[in-house]
Structure formats: structure tokens, C-alpha cells
């Protein structure tokens, strides 16, 4: 697995430069708590053999807003909407309530301190 560090400012630029629809496909978007920071990851994989997984990651603090990559990767909205509900991070123009019922506290996957 190839890990490439990036930050929220030039995230879109990096992914836009990397992602070619005929070469790679977007797998999923993920977030992991590391201390008080949050590590947000974008997984890509290329079609050819041997397929290598490429992971873009950015360390953010929980209240920062992550830029959505819907305009680059058309099918990313599902992953973003899920992550917004489960990890309680902010993604631009993504609403809550896709996964969880309104009568439930958000961010159930966050570790209770």
C-alpha cells in the first residue's frame, strides 16, 4: 500500500492530478482517530495487474471542514455521507442523516474518552 501525505489545502489538486478514470478506481474514504487529530484517508486502486492500493491521507483536527471530491470522483458522495454520520467530521456540501436516524447522537465510531 502506497501512502501519500497531503493536506486539506491542495488535496483536490493532488487527487485531481492523480485520478484517471480509465486507470484507477476510487475504493473508499476512511477516517481514523490518532490522538486528538483525525486522519482522513482516500483509497484508490489501479485496474492493471498487479493492482496497487494508493492511499492519500491528511491529518486534520475534528472541527476542520474537509473539501469534498465529488466533482473529481463522481461516486464519492456515498462514502462522504457515511463518514459525516459515523465519524462526525465535516465535509463540504454534505448533509447529515444519510446513515443514522435523526434521533441518534452523531459520531458513534468516535472513541469515548
Amino acid at each position: 500500500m502506497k501512502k501519500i501525505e497531503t493536506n486539506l489545502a491542495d488535496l483536490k489538486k493532488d487527487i485531481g492530478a492523480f485520478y484517471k478514470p480509465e486507470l484507477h478506481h476510487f475504493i473508499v474514504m476512511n477516517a481514523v482517530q490518532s490522538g486528538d487529530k483525525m486522519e482522513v484517508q482516500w483509497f484508490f486502486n489501479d485496474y492493471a495487474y498487479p493492482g496497487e492500493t494508493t492511499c492519500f491521507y491528511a491529518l486534520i483536527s475534528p472541527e476542520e471542514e474537509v473539501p469534498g471530491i465529488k466533482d473529481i470522483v463522481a461516486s464519492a458522495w456515498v462514502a462522504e455521507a457515511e463518514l459525516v454520520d459515523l465519524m462526525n467530521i465535516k465535509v463540504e456540501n454534505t448533509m447529515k442523516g444519510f446513515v443514522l436516524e435523526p434521533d441518534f447522537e452523531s459520531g458513534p465510531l468516535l472513541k469515548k474518552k
Partner: protein
Amino acid sequence: MNLAPYRKKSPWILHYNAGGCNGCDIEILACLSPKYDIERFGMINTGNPKQSDILLVTGPVTKRSRERLVEIYAQMPEPKVVISCGACASTGGVFRGMYNCEGGVDQFIPVDVYVCGCGTRPEQIIDGVVQALAILEKKTKGLEESVKLKKEAVKEGLQLNRRHIADEIKPVLT
């Protein structure tokens, strides 16, 4: 004329997945297949709550499908029997205590037969249905109370207001 004996000769089943893995559902589908042909007992899989007698529920009731489950139960005309298929429908199984599901169907609606096993074999489902038929014969047309669904019986002949019930269980849940 006593028509109760004929109930168990033509049970029409309705199947609802309240959020489990599809294991028990495909076993219910396999029950329709020529190998175990449950139409022998006169069963039809009607997709329509208003015409069915037996409700087969699979899966631990997730928070989003709970209201739909109660609505379907309320739409079915009495006498009716509820069968919970599989460990997770009966008691929550491996999903007990997960944040988005209640342990078991009987937290919402009265369950008559619990079919054990994960996943259940079609034979077990058929056994459960056969036991349910014996219960169905003894049932009255009165409404039943559930663990969470505290509600006094509606008068005979009146249609149940399902919205009302669904609203009523909300405070209990949250």
C-alpha cells in the same frame, strides 16, 4: 359455524427483513423452491400485509426499520402470528448491544414462535411454521400487547391507526 380449523390450512406468509444479514431470507426463499415446497401446506408468499396471516421477521430490528415493522404488523388483520427467524431476530444474536439495533423483534411486537439457528435451515423454518399454525388456530381476533407497545385493545371492527402506534413507541425508544 366454527372456521378456526381452516386457518391452519391456508396460511399466507409475509416476509420482512428488519435488518439482518440475508441468510435467513434466502432460506425463506429456498422454502418456496421445489425441494421444500411449502405450498404443500397451502402457503403463498403474499407481498401484501393486508391479506397475510403469518409474519416472518428476520434480523435484529434496526432503528430505521423499527417503525416500518410496527406498521406492517398493524396492517395485518387478526388473527395473525409472528415468527422470528434466526438468532438475531429472536434475541439479537451476535448483534446484541450494538448501537443501532434493539435486541430482537419481541421488543416491538409480540412474537409467538422463535426459530433458533444462525442461519436457520429451511427445515427449522418449516418446523416453526408448523408450530405457529397450532397457535394460529387458538388465536382470538383481539389485539395483543407487546413489551414496548403498551396500548389498550382497539374495539372489534375498527381499523387500527398505525401512525398512532408508531408515534407511541418513539418515546420508549429514545
